[in-house]
């Protein structure tokens, strides 16, 4: 399994796409970080206490940081689909999969190794530019950032990660079912974008995305568990079955 994963992670085309993803992700997230933001607040208390402006939390900063994980989502969904198609279909389309699949590995094991490397690359591609752009761009006040990042920020990150995992598993499943790189690419793109138009924000991945926009999103909601955890698991199981039952084509 480890040999298979390291083989997948070292394919030159995959690594090149990952590099392009890091660059594109950083540019989009960082340019979204570079924006001003302001809110007006009123604090009043019934008892006469000294209200000090220095005890106020940096809520405008928090809003900017919380909007960052959503910033590059369209870029990332595109990159995840591209990377997934490349990992799952490129070897089959160019024909060297026929030699690879003569090795003593089960077809489902190769599928799972490819899936693990896709998820690893997706998570790396998402978190690495995000945290680099936040911490390096606020180096002057970097010591204050950990106090601003709280549970709500973590929940936003988890929800966006779940949305990306859904896109990745959808690509994995479709690449087992459809034949060819372009049908997979167009099919997964079509499904991701049509679910936005049809569902009105009720179908994944945009339902998770809309949930992440809330001030303090809840994770243990039935729709989040269903769409963020059960649906990807179902797609993985279907993908394993399809990879076992179909020829390497």
């Amino acid at each position: 399994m480890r040999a298979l994963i390291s083989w997948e992670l070292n394919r030159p085309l995959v690594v090149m796409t990952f590099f392009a993803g890091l660059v594109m992700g950083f540019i989009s997230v960082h340019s979204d970080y570079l924006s001003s933001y302001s809110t007006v607040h009123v604090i009043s208390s019934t008892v006469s206490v000294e209200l000090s402006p220095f005890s106020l939390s940096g809520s405008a900063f928090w809003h900017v940081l919380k909007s960052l994980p959503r910033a590059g989502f369209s870029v990332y969904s595109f990159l995840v689909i591209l990377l997934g198609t490349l990992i799952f279909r490129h070897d089959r389309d160019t024909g060297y999969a026929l030699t690879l699949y003569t090795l003593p590995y089960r077809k489902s094991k190769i599928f799972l190794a490819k899936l693990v490397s896709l998820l690893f690359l997706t998570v790396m591609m998402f978190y690495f530019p995000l945290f680099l752009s936040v911490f390096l761009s606020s180096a002057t006040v970097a010591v204050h950032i950990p106090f601003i990042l709280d549970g709500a920020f973590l929940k936003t990150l988890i929800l966006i990660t779940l949305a990306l995992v859904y896109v990745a598993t959808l690509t994995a499943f479709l690449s087992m079912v459809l034949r060819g790189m372009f049908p997979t690419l167009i099919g997964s793109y079509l499904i991701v974008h049509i679910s936005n138009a049809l569902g009105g924000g009720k179908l994944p991945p945009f339902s998770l995305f809309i949930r992440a926009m809330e001030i303090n999103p809840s994770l243990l909601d039935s729709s989040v568990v269903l769409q963020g955890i059960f649906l990807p698991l179902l797609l993985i199981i279907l993908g394993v079955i399809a990879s076992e039952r179909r020829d390497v084509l």
Partner: protein
Amino acid sequence: MRLALVISLFLMLLPGLAYLNYREFSEDEHFIGPHSLTPSTSTSLNYIDFYFPSKALAEITCTSGSGEIYIADSLKKEPLVNFSFIGTLSAEFVVPHEGNYVVFYKGSGETQCLIRFKRPYPTRKVQDAYLIAGIFGSFLFAILWRGKR
């Protein structure tokens, strides 16, 4: 191995990418407001909480009302500047670093404030942070490249 090489290459390019983004950011005009503020007392505080992502020269314009405008750095918890005015205020101050600031007002009558930001540039520390990341990436890249041969 190739993955680590690519990540170090990304770190090496990071200062350049950040420069491109900051250049575009510096050329644009940025402003917040207009927000209306009521005078703050000891029991109620009405304030603008704003965030700006770099160092900049700021110009605050307030119309109507009279009294004093206070601007404070809310991350470092220290006062930045204050201006007294009657009728209208037009004053300049320096936003010293990226982060959160609060603007509040003591006096009489409601006032409307607008803040414009001119010539925003990243602070020296931010530039250094990006350059250090780039230098670290270049070293890593060199070591990995040598190891590969």
